[in-house]
């Protein structure tokens, strides 16, 4: 049933958020530490486990795939509610700090990715 997949996703999501909150508490903060990332890791491992034991039907899987596919529209909706007005009002300090950090980080991304071993890039086509 399709709901099994969606429910599995929901349980992983909640587990991740709970663990992230516990981690935050343990580190003495009020915020969630990597909850979504932890949820993603749980889902990756659960999928591998269920695949090995062959207990995940294609229909159940589509209950997860749908939400993965709806992701870009969700991002568009997210863009629609950014505080663009305030961002434009932030003035030169905000603008220069933002542009500066994006450019600097971009240079580092480019630099690190250029060091990526050829073999890995070559495997891409497989």
């Amino acid at each position: 049933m399709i709901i099994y997949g969606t429910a599995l996703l929901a349980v992983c999501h909640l587990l991740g958020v709970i663990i992230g909150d516990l981690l935050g508490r343990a580190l003495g903060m009020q915020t969630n530490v990597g909850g979504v990332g932890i949820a993603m890791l749980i889902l990756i491992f659960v999928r591998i486990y269920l695949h090995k034991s062959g207990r995940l039907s294609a229909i159940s899987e589509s209950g997860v795939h749908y939400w993965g596919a709806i992701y870009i529209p969700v991002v568009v909706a997210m863009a629609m509610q950014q505080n663009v007005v305030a961002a434009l009002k932030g003035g030169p300090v905000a603008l220069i700090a933002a542009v500066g950090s994006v450019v600097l980080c971009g240079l580092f991304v480019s630099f690190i990715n250029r060091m990526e071993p050829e073999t890995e890039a070559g495997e891409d086509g497989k």
Partner: protein
Amino acid sequence: MMWEILEKAAKENGLVTAFAVVGLVMLVSGVISRKLTCGRVQGSAIAILIGLALAYVGGKISGGSKGLADLALFSGVGLMGGNMLRDFAIVATAFEVHAEEAKKAGWIGAIALLLGTVLPFIVGVAVAWAFGYRDAVSMTTIGAGAITYIVGPVTGGAIGATSDVMALSIATGVIKAILVMVSTPVAAKFLRLKTPRSAMVFGGLAGTVSGVSAGLAATDRKLVPYGALVATFHTGLGCLMGPSVLFFIVRALV
């Protein structure tokens, strides 16, 4: 009369209206992408730009802080693009992750994450200093805003920054997120965004889940989960380091 009924229907079915509105924006973006740019600019990149433009219009009309979602007619957009569904959808993309690929880039992702926290912070602090902010609290808060727009106010709140500095810090983070969304597809070649590993490096360094996820979505849908996997730790790490290590260092230097 007709308008009244329409308005009522949209308000009472917020999320459903949002699906329709976003679908329409995606459709228009797809047509623009194919007809006006011959497919060179991805439809999703255009959709995000339209989304930001609508956010500006919505913010201007309502005077609120949540863009289009502050207009009653489009309040469902707030739910659809809010943290809950965004994170739910991001987690779902993990279903397509190849564990082997992710493992291979584990350590470089962690390094990127650390650099992505420290580098923007240094830039933010330096800019704050150049503009005359000389107290450790203000400099740290603005620097933290350059990490992400959540780290900024969390840090500022923890160390007691003034509200105008907080606003500046949030603005810095929001501009950064928007810049990453818009510039990633344009700079994808320069950034060498091709492999899962490169997406993880990008996710760590660029920070801001919203910026990374939108930027990668507009570049190559397949890379989204890898970038997001790393980027989701960004805010946590920033909130951990901002009010503690980073603040202590700035205070020691001032």
